[in-house]
């Protein structure tokens, strides 16, 4: 097969940092090429160089596409040649229809006037091609994120894409949607569309890729043929060391019950009759790590947030017991006062003040502990933040570094520090390792284990079943708002959990 894309000797420096150093990437015509690497390895930077976000002249090295040398000055230039990127954060306008989104910036028009018949007709054809059974006039915000991903792909196809680049395409998708997406990519490959896929989900990479290129610390480490490639082999390349165990060892010491939730029922705030959580019962014990599994939309986050000071939902009913005594948790303040902490799944939107530094984020939830009569003791605050920076190994020169500039793993550690500082008895961690590279994941697991060892009860919500299996003493499964099963560590398998998670309502 011939080479479609060649990137040679790509070096990109930012003030003080060499993000890419002599990177080489060769993608053959008609293959699915996966790029793997830890966060900060340079994957996104490389794709920004390729697509012209960083225009020619701001980097060193040479790009050839379809046998020609390319000097892209902007994203428009690269799209004109048939290179389209779909970013992790989808770039769709929620209020506009599917068809309008597909042809946004590329409108089907006649002398400045939109040809609606052509727009909707061609959109329908594209939707059929990506396997999305939706009316093209429907607003994008009304369809799920999995379908929105397909709209993005349809949009790419409308531009006569030759090279499709997907950045973490399945990060926000449930397993069904992910499987559908991967099938679609295989189909597109057979039609001659070359794909580059950036993914942290190594299972997917081994399942779909023809070739895998591994980046580490801004350098190309190796390019491997995917046939017979194992996840362990990829991880070895990514972290540069053997990760014998993906999970740190732990001796659980489980004590008495700390938190019990009975008949917890929550309705959707937007749709009064939609039962989001249905009579859920669960218990957490001292020193125990409990998992909460469920597919997208099963109500995991909603359950957690409604318990956490009624931060989600309407008409909430049910009872919460702490150490056997019923408590009333009406606000986040109440929850914190009762020793309940919740680290959100979306740390950028809900977890951190990205324009402030580590110090002020760490103290955000426990500021009262650092204050006397309403005045903050800044030196004690600095000390506290510094302590957590050391203990949790947050990689930043000082605690005055702005959190918006940290990597995902370090941001997550700041969120954890914020909640650990409130000294909770119960920690609810919602997707604690989402978008975090393998090395940092191990560190987060270590922190979780230490928290349990200190006698805290930890509830971990995760979409990655292997993570729950590796980490938890006990796992609840949630399906359509109901707890459909509970498995002890010894009995839990992916198959069993999946069975629970897909149980239909009787």
């Amino acid at each position, binding site marked *: 097969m011939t080479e479609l894309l060649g990137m040679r000797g790509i070096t990109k420096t*930012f003030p003080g940092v060499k993000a890419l150093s002599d990177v080489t990437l060769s993608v053959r015509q008609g293959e699915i090429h996966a790029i793997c690497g830890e966060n900060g390895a340079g994957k996104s930077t490389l794709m920004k160089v390729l697509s012209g976000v960083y225009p020619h002249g701001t980097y060193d090295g040479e790009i050839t596409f379809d046998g020609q040398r390319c000097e892209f000055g902007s994203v428009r230039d690269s799209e004109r040649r048939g290179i389209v990127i779909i970013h992790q954060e989808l770039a769709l306008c929620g209020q506009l229809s599917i068809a309008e989104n597909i042809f946004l910036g590329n409108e089907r028009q006649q002398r400045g006037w939109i040809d609606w018949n052509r727009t909707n007709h061609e959109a329908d054809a594209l939707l059929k091609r990506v396997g999305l059974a939706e009316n093209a006039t429907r607003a994008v915000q009304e369809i799920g994120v999995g379908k929105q991903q397909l709209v993005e792909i349809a949009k790419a196809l409308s531009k006569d894409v030759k090279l499709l680049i997907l950045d973490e395409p399945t990060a926000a998708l449930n397993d069904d949607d992910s499987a559908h997406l991967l099938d679609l990519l295989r189909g597109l490959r057979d039609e001659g569309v070359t794909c580059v896929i950036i993914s942290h989900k190594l299972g997917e990479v081994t399942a779909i890729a023809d070739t895998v290129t591994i980046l580490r610390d801004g350098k190309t480490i190796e390019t491997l043929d995917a046939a017979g490639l194992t996840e362990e082999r990829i991880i070895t390349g990514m972290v540069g060391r053997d990760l014998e165990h993906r999970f740190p060892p732990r001796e659980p010491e489980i004590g008495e019950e700390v938190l019990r939730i009975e008949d917890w029922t929550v309705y959707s705030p937007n749709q009064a009759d939609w039962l989001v959580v249905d009579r859920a019962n669960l218990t957490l014990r001292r020193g125990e790590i409990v998992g909460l599994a469920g597919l997208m939309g099963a109500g995991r986050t909603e359950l957690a947030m409604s318990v*956490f*000071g009624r*931060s989600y939902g309407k008409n909430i009913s049910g009872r919460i017991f702490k150490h056997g005594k019923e408590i009333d948790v009406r*606000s*986040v*303040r109440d*929850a*914190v006062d009762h020793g309940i902490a*919740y680290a*959100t799944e979306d740390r950028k*939107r*809900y*977890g*951190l*003040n*990205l*324009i*402030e530094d580590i110090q*002020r984020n760490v*103290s*955000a*939830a426990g*500021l*009262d502990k650092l*204050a006397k009569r*309403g*005045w*903050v003791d*800044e*030196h004690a605050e*600095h*000390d506290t933040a510094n*302590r957590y920076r050391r*203990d949790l190994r947050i990689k930043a020169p*000082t605690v005055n570094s702005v959190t918006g500039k940290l990597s995902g793993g370090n941001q997550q550690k700041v969120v954890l520090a*914020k909640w650990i500082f409130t000294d909770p008895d119960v920690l609810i961690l919602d997707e604690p390792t989402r978008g975090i590279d393998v090395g940092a994941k191990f560190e987060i697991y270590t922190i979780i284990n*230490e928290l349990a060892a200190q006698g805290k009860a930890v509830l971990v919500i995760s979409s990655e079943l292997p993570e729950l299996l590796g980490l938890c003493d006990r796992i609840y499964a949630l399906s359509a708002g109901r707890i459909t099963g509970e498995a002890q560590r010894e009995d839990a398998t992916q198959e069993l959990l999946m069975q629970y998670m897909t149980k239909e309502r009787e």
Partner: protein
Amino acid sequence: MTTTEARPAAPPGERSSRRISINPRQSGIYVAFALIVVLFEVLTGGALLEPQNISNIIVQNSYVLILAIGMILVIISGHIDLSAGSVVAMTGAVSAVLMVNWHLPWFWAVLITVAVGAVIGAWQGYWVAYFGIPAFIVTLAGMLAFRALTLTVLGNQGIGPFPDTIRTLSNGFLDGYLGNVGLGPLGGADVVTLLAGVAAVAGIAFTQWRKRSARLGYGQDVDPFAIFVLKIAGVAVVVLALVVQLARFKNLPWVLILLTALVLGYSLVAGKSVFGRHIYAVGGNLQAATLSGVKVKSVTFWIFVNMGVLAALAGIIFAGRLNQAGPTAGVNFELDAIAAAFIGGAAVQGGVGKVVGAITGGLIMAVINNGMSLIGAPSERVMLVKGVVLLAAVAYDIWTKRRAAS
């Protein structure tokens, strides 16, 4: 997890770091202010920094500066207040009715007027915080409604004159309690004012020194000792020069004392109090603040109450200065206060800004106003220049942010 480590009792002056803490985004505004002052000092042939003119600049702009303090807090929290000018007029009118028509003692009149300001702020704060209407709309409605109420209260005419105490607060100066002292070629100067200036410099030097020692004690980065001394010396020179000029005219204006107290108080609240931290948290990321247990609604509510109180203060001072509460008082004051906040480095999205920055922004506009009128520029040109300065200031802010990001 191990927590405590023996804190090294660092000898002062030795643990200085390599890094000099100059942030272009923050210091840019002060440099710009200095340049503008120098520019107009040259253009006006020295008239700008004449003793009487400095005094004028402070007295004439005190009410906008007071509004700017409230406005910067509103803007940091991610909101805006378009009603401030109308509230100034309304509270001025209320104070006039109380003092002139009803002959209430000035103290009670001021107290009641400030309470009225608080109620107005609470009214707007309720709709913004608890009902969830954008502040832009609530305060736009307030801008119309409170102007209308002003006209009702005043019965469409100006009410005055005010008691002497109020006029002294707005326009007057400290008495020369300790007499004058000769400063050679500079002539006579008021001793109390000079002492206040020396005390201010000593206070600044002392608090900075304590802050530095404490930071060293905790092993944090500080400026090298020489830079530290230079910074203090620079501040001392500016403050003393200002004080000497004021002392040569008519002593310290009362509003300057009030303004200094407000700036110090609010800087402390913004920087060091739990409430102040919550303002920044709410403006920086509303959802994250909510999920961290910050009582977001109550914070927003009290920010607007505070804005109403400061607007009432500005209303009394403005009415006292004109010696009359009039129906057109305070028109466009809110825009000046908003401009001051943004020139002073506030971010449009909220979460960023400093009280001192807003004051500096207000002073930049004041100096431009004053300097241009001294050189006889027509008012339309003054407006044009102020517009350009506002745009340039925010453009600079965004540019530095973007440069830092890439």
